[in-house]
Structure formats: C-alpha cells, structure tokens
C-alpha cells in the first residue's frame, strides 16, 4: 500500500501540473486570439490544450483534496492556512468550472468576440493563479516556506463572512446559474 502522503504528492503534482499547462495555454490562446506575435494559426491548438488541461486539473483536484485530508495531522481545519487554502481552492474550482462551462456552451466562438476572448483567457489564467497560490499555501503549511513567500501574502488572515451572507450568495448565484441555462437569444 502507498501512504496517503505519497498519494497526495502524486495527485497534487498531477493537479498543479495540469493547471500550469492550462495557464500557459490560456496565455497563448489569448495572444493568438488577438493575433499578437503572429500566433493566430495556433489558436485552435492553444484553445484545446488550455481547456483539456483545465478539465484534467479539475478532475484531479478531488483526489488531491481527499489524500490531503488523509495525510494531514490532527483533525479538522485548525490552522488559518488550511482555511485560506480551502477558500482559494473553492474559488479556483468555481472559476475554472465557469470557464469550461462557457467554452462548452459557446464553443470555439468564444474566441471570436472581442471581450469574450479577453475574459476567457483572463478567467483561465486567474483560475490557474489561484490554484498555484493554493499549492503555495500547502508548501508554507508543510515546509514553512514556499516560492510565493516573496509576495508576503496575508496567509494568516482569514476573511470570513457571516454564514447568512454566504447562504444568500449561494442562493443568488444558483438562481443566476439556473436563469443563465437558457442560451443567448438574438
């Protein structure tokens, strides 16, 4: 049997690797969609790589989370780093899911519109950035340091909303998603 710690390293590397590739591909897709650096001809390739890598990263995340819980010492979330890690990972997951949902619903046409291509590339890269920050927090938690420490991010502070506000946001966001199920009408 392989220990949870080893499995966590493997699954985390898969997740972070996939997201890192997605981030690079979203950057290339953004450049290609704006016909910068003569990359227009690579748009389809970058588009496919970006979204498939993002989807693979999302599929790998639950495994990383489960093995992380198994490998972590103690019980529950008893450290501000763990709370911030959970909040960031959730936001990244939601954003990445939104990027994929948009690509699935609008197809490659998402790159044809001026603001669509900007938001799609930006959304993908921000999701990747959040995941990398999440991984950085994991490094800070286990080793006491990480590469992003040079940014002096406020990992020790936990911005918590009242539970009623969180509930309100969930309701509004869910209703919004349901209403948006209808495709855009001309």
């Amino acid at each position, binding site marked *: 049997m392989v220990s949870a710690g080893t499995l966590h390293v493997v699954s985390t590397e898969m997740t972070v690797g996939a997201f890192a590739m997605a981030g690079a591909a979203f950057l290339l897709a953004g450049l290609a969609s704006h016909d910068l650096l003569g990359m227009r001809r690579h748009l389809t390739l970058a588009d496919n790589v970006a979204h498939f890598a993002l989807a693979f990263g999302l599929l790998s995340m639950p495994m990383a989370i489960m093995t992380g819980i198994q490998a972590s010492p103690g019980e529950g979330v008893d450290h501000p780093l763990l709370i911030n890690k959970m909040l960031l990972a959730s936001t990244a997951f939601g954003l990445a899911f939104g990027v994929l949902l948009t690509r699935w619903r609008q197809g490659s046409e998402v790159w044809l519109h001026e603001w669509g291509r900007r938001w799609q590339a930006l*959304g993908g890269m921000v999701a990747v950035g959040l995941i990398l920050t999440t991984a950085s927090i994991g490094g800070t938690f286990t080793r006491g340091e990480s590469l992003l420490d040079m940014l002096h991010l406020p990992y020790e502070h936990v911005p918590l909303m009242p539970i009623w506000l969180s509930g309100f946001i969930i309701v509004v966001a869910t209703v919004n*998603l349901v209403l948006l199920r209808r495709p*855009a009408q001309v």
Partner: protein
Amino acid sequence: MTRHRLLGVLAMLLLASSQGAANPSGVGAGTFDAQCGGACHGDADMNRSSPATVTVEAPEVAYDALLTSVSVTVSNIQTTTNGLLGVFLLSDLSGAEDTPADDGWTVISNSEGGVENYVEAQIAPGQTNHTVSWTLRAPAVGTYNLHAAIHHGTQDGSEAPFFGATASPATVSVVEVPENLPRLSATFTPPTQITVGQDTEVNLQTEFVDVVAVDWRTVGGEAQTASVRQLEDGSWAFTLPASVQPVVIEWRAHLEGEGPPQTTPWFQINSDDASWSVDEPTAYVQSLAMLVAATSLFVGLQHRRSQSSLKAYEADLNEIGGED
C-alpha cells in the same frame, strides 16, 4: 443507464472504504481502550507484534485521591514512515473497558500536553527510546495494575499494523492518607496548558502544609527554584516564567508540615502557541459560496458579453442593410 449509475455509486463506495480503512496519520490523542484506539492495530487477527519493548514505571504506594506519576518507556523503537507512535496507559489488556478511568484513576495530565490515556508521539528517524509520563489521581484504597501498550506502522511500505504491550504490569497499592500528611488538596488540579510568551501563575491548595518550595524545569533541563508566596492558610502561588517557544515545562512541590515532608510528582505543563479556532460550518459554507459565486459570475459575464456582441453584430447587419 441505471445500471451504470449503480456501478458508479458502488465504485465510489469501494474507493471510499479503501481511504477510510486505516488511520495512517494517526487518530490523535484521546481516551481509548486498546481495541478502539488503533482499529486494526488492536485486532489480534490482523496486527503484527511490535519489536519494541514497553515498560511502565509507577510508585509502589499511592495515597487515596492524591496525585501520583506514572511513566511509560518504549525502547527499541522502529523507524516508521510517518514517525507516529501511539502509546496507551491501561488498567488491563482485555481490549475493552481497560482505560485507567475504568479502574477509578483520573488522568490529570500527560507529558504530551493532554489529559487522555492515549497519546501519539512524533518519533524522529533513528530515535529508539521515548518516554511518556502521566499524572494520575489515585482511586479508592486497593491494589491496582497499570499496563501500557503501543501501536505503530512500518517503513517497508506494507502499512502493516504493529501492536505491543508490557510483559508485566506495574502494581500500585493505594492506601489511606496518613493523618497530618502534608499534601496537595484533593480538589487541586494542576494546569496542563499555558500560552507561549506569557507568565503563568499557578495557585496551589494544600492541607497540613506550613512551608512550600517549588522546582521547575524544561524537559531535560536543570531544575530551578520558583518563588512561592502564601496567599492565605492552605493557599499558595508561584509564577512560571514565559517560554519563548512551545515546550513542556515540569514542576513539583516540596511540602513540609507536622507530618513527614512530601515531594509531589513532576507535573507537566505544555507551553504552546495561542490556540486558533474557526467556526468550521461558516468556513465550509463560505467555501461553497465562493465556488458557486465564481462560476456564476464568470458564466454571467460571458453570457452578457455574448448577448451584447450579438446585438452589436445585429446592429451592424442592419446598418449594412440600410446602406444597401
């Protein structure tokens, strides 16, 4: 389709069971019988014998309802993957209802900073010995046995559960407290946790005591004397200095009065950083809120953009048509 869903659910359940079947990261300190504390470690059909040696040391005589100290030493410890070593203090080795509390003992503190009969110690690679001490309040008059047991993993990757126990128990005779014996009050409970960076004042309640002297030390360090002041008859106070980092501090009191002088066992205090806690349900709900909000915001943004682009496209077409 239904069959596929059923297969999917079954597969998820099977995966979940493999994740939850063992506790390779330990279960944390707690009040456990030997059987419950280790799941498969305590099951004679599943475990393996630990090569470590476990010995328990306790005074031969303890006084009814007064505090005494018991230590468990584990030697020949094997290096394991995560270095966790679980140590039990037990009243017997039956595997059920065998905590010290089942014989009437009360666990006041242990050297790992808790108040439970089971602790998990982190053993460094190559470390072969480890001692855990408990401070107990003695039960009613009688003769009692105290056993110890351990469990741990391995380093060979098999994740086999290992279990070990003392070959022979320590026997403690609990006797009546002699008249006029200088002693700590039966109601006195020593503190077990203090915060790093803060001085700690300890208040002692005593009986038949005229003079109190207190020694304190960090584990492995030299003992120093604390200044003790009398607050009132049978009530004393002394101050432990602030620690600059998490550490276990030990102290004991020398009690003098009309009866024979007494020295208490070493009491352990765990100095730790200020504890941090959060309302977990609030954090979980906020986490879900941020997930749904991020998805909704992005999809909404692109949806709005899509509609405005189409309208602009439509306007362009109309304009072109108008020129024609």
